[in-house]
């Protein structure tokens, strides 16, 4: 084997070592020490840093088979799908509130347009299937996580993130109850001049605040189980079933998102009697958000379901 080479040092070495952090954990665990030794031996420069950073992309996209951690991939996929699904569910709730739930307004507008109605039905169907898939696939996994956490004495930390959505729902329910109470004005923020965006009488600013807080609560409630799943390092049939259910949930939720986009654009085009639907900026936020979250959900779920299938025998 070769003789020991001369050592060099420099800021570029630090950069090259930092580029190593871009690799998947399994890759770093297997090759990290060797690469650091190579960088030390060769006096790594900016070229090494750029090269390492560039090759980190295929290391994530197509991990070498001998480093392919199937349970780890499924856990990561479930965590990512959970976050994206929560975001899509939040967007769906906003859509329902601003479009489908506006029954009285729709009677006065052209929301009965055939395209919009079909989109509503497709949206409802996809949403129901998606929620059922989450329930059927997620419940066994949740119970397994709970059992594992109980054995490790970590039940409190597993359940802690649930406090956030519960608190949010309680605050929202309290606000809506106050606003709906007879009499006028009931609460200081219920200005009579604002448009009834939320169908419950909350003004647009409060509605927007509740929506933003709702998204934050949804993401926290999804991130908690995702992190716990990684920490508990679960594997086995419950994880496989959950990964398969997550694929169905992600695809149907993505379809629900797409049908809601069709309905939202339809309302923008064909609801001339109601000015609220002709504001362009909500669409400019809603459409890209739905597309991005759907793409993340479906791609992550596809990677999870790929990992859930047993490897082909060579």
């Amino acid at each position, binding site marked *: *084997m*070769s003789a020991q*080479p001369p050592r060099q040092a420099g800021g570029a070495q630090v950069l*090259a070592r930092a*580029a190593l952090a871009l690799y998947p954990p399994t*890759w770093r665990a*297997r*090759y990290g*020490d*060797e*690469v*650091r*030794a*190579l*960088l030390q*031996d*060769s006096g*790594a420069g900016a*070229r*090494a840093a*750029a*090269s*390492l*950073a*560039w*090759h*980190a992309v*295929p*290391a994530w996209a197509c991990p*070498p*088979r*001998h*480093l392919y951690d199937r349970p780890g991939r499924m856990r990561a996929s479930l965590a990512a799908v959970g976050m994206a699904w929560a975001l899509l569910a939040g967007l769906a709730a906003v859509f329902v509130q601003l479009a489908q739930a506006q029954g009285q307004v729709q009677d006065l507008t052209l929301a009965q347009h055939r395209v919009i109605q079909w989109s509503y039905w497709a949206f409802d169907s996809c949403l129901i299937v998606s929620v059922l898939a989450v329930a059927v696939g997620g419940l066994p996994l949740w119970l397994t996580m709970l059992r594992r956490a109980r054995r490790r004495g970590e039940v409190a930390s597993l359940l802690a993130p649930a406090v956030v959505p519960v608190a949010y729902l309680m605050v929202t329910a309290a606000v809506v109850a106050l606003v709906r109470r007879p009499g006028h004005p009931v609460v200081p923020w219920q200005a009579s001049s604002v448009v009834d965006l939320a169908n419950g009488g909350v003004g647009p600013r409060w509605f927007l605040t509740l929506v933003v807080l709702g998204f934050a609560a949804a993401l926290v409630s999804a991130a908690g189980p995702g992190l716990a799943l990684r920490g508990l390092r679960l594997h086995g049939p419950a994880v496989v079933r959950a990964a398969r259910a997550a694929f169905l949930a992600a695809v149907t939720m993505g379809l629900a998102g797409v049908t809601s986009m069709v309905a939202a654009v339809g309302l923008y085009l064909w609801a001339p009697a109601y000015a609220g639907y002709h504001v362009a900026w909500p669409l400019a936020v809603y459409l890209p958000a739905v597309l991005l979250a759907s793409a993340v959900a479906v791609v992550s779920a596809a990677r999870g379901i790929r990992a859930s299938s047993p490897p082909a025998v060579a």
Partner: protein
Amino acid sequence: MKDGLNRWADPPLLVLASLAEEPKHGYAITQDVADTMGVRLSAGTLYAVISRLESRGLIEPLELDDRRRPYRLTAAGARELAEQSERMRQVASVAQQRLRVNYGWAGA
């Protein structure tokens, strides 16, 4: 045919050819490839190739030697290298013959 014009400098082949001499660790491979084949392999390229070759069973890792892990060619790796070398030799032979006949090329 998936070969590109620079197939001769395909990093996996260079690494296989280097390891055909003896087991080497990462830095020794880059030095050998640079000295004998005139190609400088960067750290990212080298370890992308090593992980791919290891995954395909063409090379195998040996025991760590002070954080430096040597690799050696497997029997499958030797067969692959032999096949690729033979194809390259045939191409080189045909190309040189035609260059001599049609372009008066006298050889390097």
